[in-house]
């Protein structure tokens, strides 16, 4: 969708979902690209020592996937004015994260999208997601 078509959006419109199966390599790659080398994201021993079942994905990796859904729908990263999430559950490698969202409000050229991202059991990994877009 190109940005000018945002004028035609209606509350309740669903964004195309984005799903990603998370592999350990993805977390290593994200660690390197982002500079977040916290070992709970790549070292099972360290993760278990702090009470986790094993390594978990970076919250910001999950948010990056959810952001793809918003920018892919809007067609232009410059349209995004605000992006917010709450990190509400962890997700481990081997699981699939699915981002889902819909248009909540339209006010002229300003659009509010509410979204979340969930694991295969439907548990929300990211909750209370909000994206504000403007033409």
């Amino acid at each position: 969708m190109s940005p000018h078509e945002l004028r035609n959006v209606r509350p309740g419109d669903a964004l195309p979902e984005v799903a990603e199966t998370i592999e350990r390599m993805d977390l290593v790659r994200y660690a390197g690209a982002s500079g977040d080398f916290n070992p709970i994201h790549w070292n099972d021993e360290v993760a278990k020592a702090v009470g986790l079942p094993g390594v978990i994905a970076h919250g910001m990796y999950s948010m990056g996937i959810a952001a793809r859904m918003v920018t892919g729908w809007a067609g232009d990263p410059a349209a995004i004015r605000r992006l917010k999430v709450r990190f509400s559950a962890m997700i481990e490698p081997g699981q699939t994260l699915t981002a889902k969202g819909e248009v909540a409000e339209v006010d002229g050229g300003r659009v509010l999208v509410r979204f979340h991202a969930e694991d295969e059991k439907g548990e929300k990994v990211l909750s209370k997601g909000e994206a504000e877009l403007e033409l």
Partner: protein
Amino acid sequence: MPLNQALVGTVYPAVRYEVGREKLREFAIAVGETDPIYHDEAAARAAGHPDLPAVPTFAVVLSMRAGQVVYGDPDLGLDYSRVVHGEQEFVYHRPIRAGDRLLAAGKVAAVAAKGRHELLTLETEITTEAGEPVCTVRATVLSRGTAPPRGSAA
């Protein structure tokens, strides 16, 4: 030990960051973003961008660096091993782009007790070296088990 409330409002020295095209491509790949506007300069220009734009969450790279300055202040009293990421918010004034020479200054925006834990909000103001606002980043982290005991003077 509770976090130091007296530091709320303190702005720390800015870190400098020069945005390179390969770094933007690397980050886009790392979050699985394949849209050519994030990888190919011609596609970016055709879409109206003066150079490769960053994916929206790239701003966290700068806010983490600014955060290291804040979290590393011994007066704050933060034990990073107790930290859990709670919320993240980006307010965009314009996209970050390749070639940008940016400054990122971290601020302790809030410290609040929540049960036995404390919530620390780090606010990072990202601007160009010339002072143009680019992005405001707010990260709220949970400091587990550090809240002052009930009834004590905070």
